[in-house]
């Protein structure tokens, strides 16, 4: 029982991590580097979009990602009785 609880907990955790890291990769290496030139055809205010992702947007998303992970894991800890 205890072992299988730990196993499902770990699997869920890995799922969250992979999902969040995929977003992490997309906004920085994707939008900020690989697809920068395409995105630069669009503008928000004075910012070319690719440039904005590289120098602003990706960092904001990073902060959000960590806090989302904190929330997800606090819930998951509770669900599995690991929050003590």
């Amino acid at each position: 029982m205890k072992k299988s609880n730990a196993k499902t907990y770990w699997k869920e955790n890995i799922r969250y991590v992979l999902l969040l890291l995929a977003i992490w990769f997309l906004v920085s290496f994707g939008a900020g580097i690989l697809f920068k030139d395409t995105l630069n055809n669009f503008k928000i205010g004075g910012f070319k979009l690719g440039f904005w992702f590289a120098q602003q947007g990706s960092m904001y998303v990073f902060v959000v990602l960590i806090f989302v992970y904190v929330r997800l894991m606090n819930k998951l800890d509770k669900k599995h009785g690991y929050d003590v």
Partner: protein
Amino acid sequence: MMYSLFVEGIGVQNWTYILVGITFALYIGIAIWSRAGSTKEFYVAGGGVSPLANGMATAADWMSAASFISMAGIISFAGYDGAVYLMGWTGGYVLLALLLAPYLRKFGKFTVPDFIGDRYYSKTARIVAVFCALLVSFTYVAGQMRGVGIVFSRFLEVNINSGVIIGMLIVLFYAVLGGMKGITYTQVAQYCVLIFAFMVPAIFISIQMTGNPIPQLGFGGELADGSGVYLLDKLDGLSTELGFAEYTEGSKSMIDVFAITLALMVGTAGLPHVIVRFFTVKRVKDARKSAGIALLLIVLLYSTAPAVAVFARTNMIETVSNQPYDAVPEWFKKWETTGLIGFTDKNEDGVIQYVADKSKNELVVDRDIMVLANPEIASLPDWVIALVAAGGLAAALSTAAGLLLVISASVSHDLIKKIINPKISEKGELIAARLSAVGAVCVAGYFGINPPGFVAAVVALAFGLAAASFFPAIILGIFYKRMNKEGAIAGMVVGITSMLLYMIKYKLGWFDEVVPHQNEWWFGISPEGFGSIAMILNFLVSVVVMKLTPVPPDEVQDIVENIRIPSGAEEATH
């Protein structure tokens, strides 16, 4: 009226003495209040730091003289390419929060070599880890001491060496007395000082140039002169006019930008002085949360820096380019005497030509001036100019202290207690820790006063070294139960050796007596970006060697299962 007369009467110099004096008194006061009484307090601040305090301390620990003084300047010359630092030095925190911090906190020891040594059940692994930690930390700390000296010499008119010595004494006082406990709470104060000192001039200048008080929005806005032109479009125009690459495009190849960003992210997550901060909180959930708070506080400065870069560059080009030398503002002459800005009238027309073509360019600008002189270029009040000095010192001192602690813990805990003399008493170990801190300060001070020519080159590469050594070993240790000592040691050795060799060949040029041309770089990847390749090598070698060698013992596999579960994280112990 009286007030403003009084304020204007003080002058930049006295303001600087007042602000630096107050902040130093504050740091010393905190150190006396929070001195360490046990090794646990000395290494991990007793293990009961709140997530908010740890987040602030981590942010100050992380943001060095380079972040505060140099980064905006580097970006203002690199344009788009500067994004490698912005994304690289923040994206690593996502890796830390998701892949490292919670598990290392659960593991509950004092240092990174502690984890490597126990998880890989091997003294050799521990020694390799100690070597890597010392290599990374020493290259880094020398740069900080130099930074302290430079700020002193530029703002307080003492020479650089005296500046380094004053800085050494301050750090010595609170790092040796307070250990991690003293450092943590001084770093909290230093974060407040440095962020205030960075934001105030940025907000002033943003209002001046774009009418928007939020710099992050201002630099994407229209100019305040009513022309309806976007600031970035104007800067792109100015840059191409003078023959530079368009500001928002940059000039590095895409693969190199990719590689450098990755190396800096992974390196950040592998830096021992950052990782060790997460040993100081109470629970696993606090480790995750404080990583989030730390990144939020770091991004406050990091998202402002590219705005400062744009403001400063536009301002500078407009103020000096094609202006007669006799008519330059006062700040130009003042900073000319420090050698940070220089003008040689090549065509003898008395006018400053600032262009990309090196044979015609007459203006040499040090990148540091973009932050240091920025308030003066924008004619801000004296107290704002003085604030920059206090902020730069806070940034340099907080990082230096964090690094010194890693060095002293590596020596007193990982080498003396765990390898040379396991029977040493608690009291003896605490004395050893303090003595190693003293020794480390002296070595760092020596390199601050006599910087070897290659220090600057090597500091940027400390990230590559961390990426190539610690990151894969820690990740595999947590996420791959089957990973054994043979694999991890082979991986670390191959990773760090390949990084060192590439650096020596392509950055320092010691093999060929000249630095080889960048056409010879492997896959077009610069030494700064090679950390990502060395990291991949480390992973590959680890896995291949592991497949050929025995599985780790059962009790080690139990450790791995245990650190994956957050509950029951005991306080850090031996």
